[in-house]
């Protein structure tokens, strides 16, 4: 049995509304997610998936409604945000730093896991590129580096926005395994994806955002 996450609680979204360019993206949205489960957001382009994720990360404020973590509103709960590992459309890696420097930076900023950088590099298949500037990586390699963020910290709440864009098949399988381990350890995951993702054996809530 692997070490379980210590900081977990139910996340609840109540009556949430989001406006964008004076148009209602969604309103009256109610959804919840508990530890050891996955919330898979579905919906066509422009249905507000990314906006919902950004609200959950605190980058956006909801236009109506609230989000609570263990019955506390997230805006008054800094621990909630510190516990998020977010990989969005933007990779959040610095082009001018090498692969290894980027990884070490991700680790040093948060509650670090005790995983070795060298091990992570081997796992994501960038060991040979450790001293290469991230600028010189391909789009898929950059994405892998961005997703490696998930391994560097002990955060129990993962929010992934189209995580598998431009990844090759082997990497997709690797990160699917990583997600499964994460959920088994008591973690939570919210993701959007237009790729088929193998989440067999996990409790997955498919939630559809429709206009």
């Amino acid at each position, binding site marked *: 049995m692997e070490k379980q996450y210590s900081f977990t609680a139910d996340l609840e979204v109540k009556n949430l509304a989001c406006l964008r360019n004076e148009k209602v993206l969604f309103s009256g949205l109610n959804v919840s997610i508990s530890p050891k489960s996955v919330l898979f957001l579905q919906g066509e382009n422009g249905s507000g998936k990314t906006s919902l994720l950004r609200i959950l*990360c*605190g*980058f*956006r*404020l909801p236009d109506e409604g609230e989000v609570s973590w263990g019955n506390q509103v997230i805006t008054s709960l*800094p621990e909630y*945000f*510190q516990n*998020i590992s*977010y990989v*969005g*459309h*933007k*990779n*959040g*890696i*610095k*082009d*001018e*730093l090498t692969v290894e*420097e980027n990884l070490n*930076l*991700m680790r*040093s*900023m*948060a*509650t670090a896991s005790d995983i070795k950088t060298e091990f992570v590099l081997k796992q994501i298949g960038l060991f040979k590129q450790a001293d290469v*500037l991230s600028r010189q990586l391909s789009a898929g390699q950059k994405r892998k580096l961005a997703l490696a*963020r998930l391994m560097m910290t002990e955060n129990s709440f993962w929010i992934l926005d189209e995580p598998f864009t431009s990844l090759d098949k082997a990497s997709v399988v690797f990160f699917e395994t990583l997600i499964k381990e994460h959920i088994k350890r008591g973690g939570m995951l919210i993701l959007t994806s237009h790729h088929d993702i193998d989440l067999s054996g996990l409790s997955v809530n498919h939630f559809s955002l429709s206009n």
Partner: protein
Amino acid sequence: MFNAWTQIFKRDLLIAFRRRSEIIHPLIFFVMVISLFPLAIGDDKVLLQKIAPAILWVTALLATMLSLDNLFRSDFEDGSLEQMTLLKTPLSFLVTAKIAAHWFITGLPLILITPLLAVLLYLPSESISMLLLTLLLGTPTLSLIGAVGIALTVGLRQGGVILSLLILPLYIPVLIFATLAMQNVEQGFSAEAQIAMMIAILVLAITLSPFAIAAALRVSLN
């Protein structure tokens, strides 16, 4: 908390070192603009000497504003800023690391090169030390105030013009006290009052602007 601060500080120095042109451009701008004045005015030593403090300070102010442009832009564009808001260390504290690093690589070289340019404008040596003191106290203030404007406009596509309209008026107090201090010294008076005011403004900027910057960055992210 301080670990994250040091990491950001070191990261920004390293990135600046690997992208040197961005540090050097404002510095070249500073040198070029100042050396244009003796060319335009001609060999009028008295006039040059008289307006030297104004030339040096106004140019330093513009060079600072020019250099600030990239302070948050790359972090905003590559998503590092989003990640920074999710850290345990408050964003308002982390931005001071970015500004400190930025001042270290743009403000400091500017101050170091100033004595050379002051000689070009026939500034007497006793005024040069006062000039350096005002720059040392003034440029961090300019960076801190400018960063608020940068943080507000980082999400806009053409923030440049709005930025100058937004922050140039706020630079006026610093400019007034700095040039007044130098005039006083030239005329043989004490500049203590002006220096005290500049220190006060700097302290005020250090204590208040980080919160404004963090709030503005969150607005830009929204």
